[in-house]
């Protein structure tokens, strides 16, 4: 009886529950307001021309075409580096390697690497890729100063190292969630290790691996700090493309030795270092809207994949 009475008079509880609720709604309201603000201010400049044109007139007019192209080019090369390496090494760690002290150290370092500040990866990119690998390549190949300077290739490689832990961790998680009984059943049918991985483990883990890959792309496309000194450029008149010719047959490819424009960097530079930040404010909001739309699209896809993945696993 006394307890029931206490329950009814739980004023403290009433206050705190509502406080928690109130704080959450404030948070949600602020976040929605932020998105709304970017949308309202940015949607005015969005047009076909804005998305595909080059900046004109000292960046105060024109579009963000080259910046979008650069973002796609850099993330594309980044995926080529990071995803195969990340997925394959996760398969090795989870399926082949025995649980030794060494593999545990690798797992811990991979986990912790995901939390290392991105600017530190920028330092690594500069010290390792440009000043060590690039300079030595130039010396060996006798190319003068081709590789030993900031370029698209090194920015992509650095971002690849940055997202590598993301890919490895999510692939490990996906592989780990495949029940051991399924592997045992496969072995019981006489399948070899590779047959088991190929036919039993990977098909089940695929949505999880895809989620990690998409999250990695979204992270790479949004990063600014590490590429600040790895070849992102304020303005370039031409796209970083080159004609690769074998005999008479020519194809246009991304030129990895070129500098590039980058959407996230473009926003930073317009907001802080352009000649007239107030005049370019609509363009800044427009670019921000495009970047947010891009990352949200990727993240929502990843979330949907993960949701379905967990649902499937729940049924197993």
């Amino acid at each position, binding site marked *: 009886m006394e307890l029931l009475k206490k329950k009814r008079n739980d004023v403290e509880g009433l206050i705190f529950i509502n406080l928690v609720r109130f704080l959450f709604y404030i948070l949600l309201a602020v976040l929605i307001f932020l998105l709304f603000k970017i949308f309202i201010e940015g949607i005015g400049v969005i047009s076909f021309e804005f998305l595909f044109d080059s900046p004109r007139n000292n960046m105060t007019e024109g579009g963000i075409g080259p910046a979008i192209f650069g973002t796609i080019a850099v993330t594309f090369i980044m995926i080529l580096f990071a995803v195969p390496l990340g997925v394959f090494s996760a398969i090795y760690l989870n399926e082949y390697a025995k649980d030794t002290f060494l593999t545990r150290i690798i797992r811990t370092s991979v986990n*912790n690497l995901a939390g290392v500040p991105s*600017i530190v990866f920028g330092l690594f990119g500069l010290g390792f890729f440009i000043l060590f690998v690039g300079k030595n390549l130039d010396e060996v190949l006798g190319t003068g100063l081709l590789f030993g300077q900031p370029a698209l290739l090194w920015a992509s490689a650095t971002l690849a190292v940055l997202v590598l832990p993301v890919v490895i961790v999510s692939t490990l998680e996906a592989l780990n969630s495949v029940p051991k009984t399924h592997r045992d059943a496969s072995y019981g049918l006489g399948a070899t290790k590779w047959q088991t991985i190929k036919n039993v483990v990977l098909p089940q883990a695929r949505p999880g691996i895809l989620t990690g890959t998409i999250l990695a792309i979204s992270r790479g496309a949004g990063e600014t700090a590490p590429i600040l000194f790895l070849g992102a450029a304020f303005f370039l008149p031409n796209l970083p493309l080159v004609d690769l010719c074998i005999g008479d047959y020519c194809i246009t490819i991304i030129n990895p030795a070129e500098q590039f424009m980058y959407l996230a960097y473009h*926003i930073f530079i317009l907001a802080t270092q352009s000649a007239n930040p107030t005049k370019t404010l609509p363009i800044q909001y427009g670019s921000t809207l495009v970047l947010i739309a891009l990352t949200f699209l990727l993240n929502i896809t990843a979330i949907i994949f993960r949701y379905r993945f967990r649902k499937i696993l729940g049924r197993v």
Partner: protein
Amino acid sequence: MITEELNTIKIDKVKESSFAKKIKKSTRVKEKTIHYFFALNGVMALIFIILIFIFLFKEGLSALEHIGLLDFIYFDRVQSDGSVERLYQWYPTSEEARYSLIPLIAGTLLTAVPATLISTIFGVAAGIYLSEIANPKLKEFLKPAIELFAGIPTVVIGFIMLAAGATFFDDLLNPANRLNAFIASIGLSFIIIPVIASLTEDALHSIPNELRMASYGLGATRWQTVRYVILPAAFSGVSASIILGFGRAIGETMIVLMASGNAANITTNIFNSVRTMTATIAAEMGEVSHGSDHYFALFFIGIVLFTITFILNLIAEIIINKMRKKNIF
């Protein structure tokens, strides 16, 4: 496919055992090759991890040969009358270069600590709301929505604080500098709240339902259950989320670069401009000549950052691992 291969092996065994062995050998070779292929990838990933350590520490520690550990703390300027003035300043490009990290560390703390405090209040509240109060159907939509905000590029938050936030707080609070540590810590909160909220929700959610039921059975209200049962049980998980959030606040670059004002002051006034370690690297690395003292000093800041965040992450991971073991009854 498996059964097909099984059948062929079986039939072959019956027909001609030597042929069966042949297939087996080729399969064995294939298996071994694939094994080595994956191992090679694992080794390559490991090499990259080791390379990060080596290159960072190689460049960073050679700073100590050029500059010296004490010079990273203070600079003694000899006055004309022979007395010594001790300066804690970061002026790497001045004629008598001063490399004291004290203002940068102070700036980092003055942005990261308030940001962590704000984020703890909102993040833990959001975690409690999602796990214990919200309708489960609503939660399924709200949690991904909160996590979505963790994926906002930081340059976007920096831009918003610069373009809109600074003006808003300038009118509201009339701070000493228009861009200051307070603006930066508000910006940082936007990315740290989702981290803390999501991990807190995980920690609360992993508490077995029996504990809740037992508490309700004893007549406790919902708040009493949260306050005296759930939160104490999930304490380690919640604190791990706060540590991870603090680590991110220290390591975040773009928001502080754009919103903190970037003046290397030693101050305790949150409305002053400050300069963080990350912003210093970002702002100065592009213009520094490679191999100069300044260049090595920036790498030294890099290893300081690396070490701090690595240790914070390690602590959080140990706490989370312990929690996982404890929760499996």
